[in-house]
């Protein structure tokens, strides 16, 4: 028992030591991310001291870029499951090791989600009020309580699976099927649930007709399964370049097909939404009008949504063409367009218009402040840093460079 603990501690300390070694590109990357983190932390401290008045949020638009980023990143986290399904359900062994990279991305994304929600709270020190038993947890009534459970559960699931598989590889031991396969399958369902629960946060509000629609859940999943694998495609190519890890083209092509189909579904669902809003032309279409065409002279979001739609359509076209199969740079272009397009569509194109006009018909637009933007950049940097560290530890383990043999 004690030896097991000692061995595990040794393993962890070796992993930790890895983080301090690297070439100049590693230090530059990590260093710059840390600098952005520090700036974000400073901006957040200002927000903690002075209150959320340091952001651009108002009573009318009470959720902004923090929740927009949170929504996007929950989708990215859920999309890790898109790597798991081909491997464990369809036994596509080419992608086997990539599952770990996908799940590590999910862990980093969930950490970012938790950070975004925390910085959005007016009283973050009262987080303990959420703990069942000690605080008062409004489960199952509040969808936010469901979100707390599913997000933390998903985090635990992924940390456990990755940790177990990596430790087994470190010890050159075959992982015991019962210790991880059931959890992997739970994870597949759980991944869909985290994003659906996040969608239900919005869907259940009768006072916000823009959100109160059954299509929001499916749109969330479709866009998540487009943007998530697109991020993984880019991350794997970077991995190829900076580590000795071999990422097969076949893996990238499988992911490409996933992005291709999901983007098609995403755009189809968008078309459904647009038809329903504009053909019906009821008073409830005000938010959609604001988003796509402007309302009563206010049109801050109009260029953004049309850019997003353009990006998504171009990405879909590129993905449909064999060009992206042959040429990785073109695939990268398509992925970047898809990620940016979906970030805009899901973040600004969903969260903000729900608040405009206000329930009493007032149009108040939203613009994040510099402080708010710095906090967002800080959390993104934190997430990228976390993912970098995870890869910095896991690649040598998978490679065999970091192994019990050479302790």
């Amino acid at each position, binding site marked *: 028992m004690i030896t097991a603990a000692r061995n595990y501690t040794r393993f962890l300390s070796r992993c930790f030591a890895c983080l301090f070694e690297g070439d100049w590109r590693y230090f530059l990357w990590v260093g710059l991310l840390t600098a952005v983190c520090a700036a974000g932390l400073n901006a957040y401290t200002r927000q903690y*001291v002075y209150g959320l008045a340091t952001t651009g949020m108002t009573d009318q638009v009470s959720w902004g870029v923090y929740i927009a980023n949170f929504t996007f990143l929950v989708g990215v986290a859920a999309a890790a499951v898109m790597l798991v399904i081909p491997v464990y359900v369809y036994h596509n062994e080419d992608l086997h090791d990539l599952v770990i990279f996908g799940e590590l991305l999910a862990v980093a994304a969930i950490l970012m989600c938790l950070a975004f929600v925390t910085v959005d*709270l007016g009283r973050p020190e*009262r987080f303990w009020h959420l703990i069942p038993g000690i605080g*008062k947890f409004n489960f199952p009534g509040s969808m936010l309580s469901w979100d707390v459970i599913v997000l933390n559960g998903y985090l635990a699931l992924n940390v456990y699976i990755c940790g177990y598989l990596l430790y087994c590889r470190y010890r050159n031991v075959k992982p015991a099927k019962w210790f991880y396969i059931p959890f992997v399958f739970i994870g597949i369902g759980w991944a869909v649930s985290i994003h659906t629960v996040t969608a239900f946060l919005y869907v259940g509000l009768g006072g916000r007709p823009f959100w109160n629609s059954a299509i929001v859940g499916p749109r969330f999943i479709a866009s998540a399964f487009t943007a998530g694998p697109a991020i993984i495609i880019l991350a794997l190519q970077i991995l190829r370049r900076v580590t000795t890890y071999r990422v097969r083209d076949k893996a990238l092509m499988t992911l490409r097909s996933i992005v291709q189909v999901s983007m098609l579904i995403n755009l189809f669902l968008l078309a459904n939404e647009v038809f329903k809003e504009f053909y019906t032309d009821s008073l409830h279409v005000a938010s959609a009008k604001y988003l796509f065409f402007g309302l009563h002279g206010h049109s801050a979001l109009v260029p953004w949504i049309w850019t997003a739609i353009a990006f998504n359509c171009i990405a879909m076209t590129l993905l449909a063409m064999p060009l992206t199969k042959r040429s990785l740079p073109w695939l990268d272009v398509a992925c970047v367009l898809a990620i940016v397009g979906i970030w805009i569509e899901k973040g600004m194109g969903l969260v903000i218009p729900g608040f405009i006009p206000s*329930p*009493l018909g007032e149009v108040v637009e939203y613009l994040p402040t510099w402080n708010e933007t710095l906090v967002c950049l800080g959390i993104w940097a934190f997430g990228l840093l976390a993912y970098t560290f995870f890869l910095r530890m896991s690649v040598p383990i998978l490679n065999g460079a970091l192994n019990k043999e050479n302790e």
Partner: protein
Amino acid sequence: MIANPPPESRDSISRRSFLRGSTAAAAGVAAMAAGLAPLRKLGESISVDQFLQQHYKELKPEDMDKVLRRIEGEVERQYGVRPHVRDYKPMNGVEYVYALNLTRCVGCRKCVHACVAENNQSRDPEIQYIQVIKMPNGTFDMEKGDAHYAPESVPEKGFFYMPVQCHQCKNPPCTKVCPVKATWTEPDGITVIDYNWCIGCRYCEAACPYFARRFNFSEPTIPKDKLNLEMSYLGNQPRHKGVMEKCHFCIQRTRVGRYPACLEVCPTGSRKFGNILDPNSEVAHILREKRVFVLKEEVGTLPRFFYYFDV
């Protein structure tokens, strides 16, 4: 390339690179720590009692007493005067209902400011629980309304005025969504907020169909001489940044049998309030005899706030 270091010089290289890495890391940590500099401006930090305070419903009478004294002390330290903070319990056999006569409302906004004075709202920025919407005759489309009207005098021809505040719904969407149960409906119908429990997630603000809730984006400022010293825990105790607040039917007045402040200053008598369970109350008469309606009935909130026209 993150390659394997050559075995023979592995130790020396690792040690050197470890030192190099740790220097960078230490400097990074120093930058992070310096980033926390604004905390020195935090002023009065949160006391242990404040931090550990339980939810309103968990407080036994002696705990509540301690909390009330603590709040009195906090207000005294901040404003220089000691208030009376009490916890008023709901009365039996009482369910409050508000009725608003749209024929009579002239849009003078005295109700808005009586509320601000009574309930210790922040003045900078000024938080107003009541919003009076100026609506053109012939429509109830809120998009055509205007809450920022500022003519020379009211009422203006061709318009009617509709004050909106928390409707204390029977089926409130806001209490459903609160993750920590910081807001709930009391037996007498008032939807209350435990300001010391709220975590400030603003989900309730997103859920409310009537724009009734307000959030403290910064620390409220109340001029010392304008502080209302008769306070209640669930009502007009001064709030702090980061928590929600809203109309609570002047709980510190209504639960001792008095009318809310907004009603008492209305020059045209447009506001009516009382116990709907009493068949002789004004509001019971109104619901029986006048043609009342509620806003956004299709959302199913079952408001306890009714509008009607006289003539």
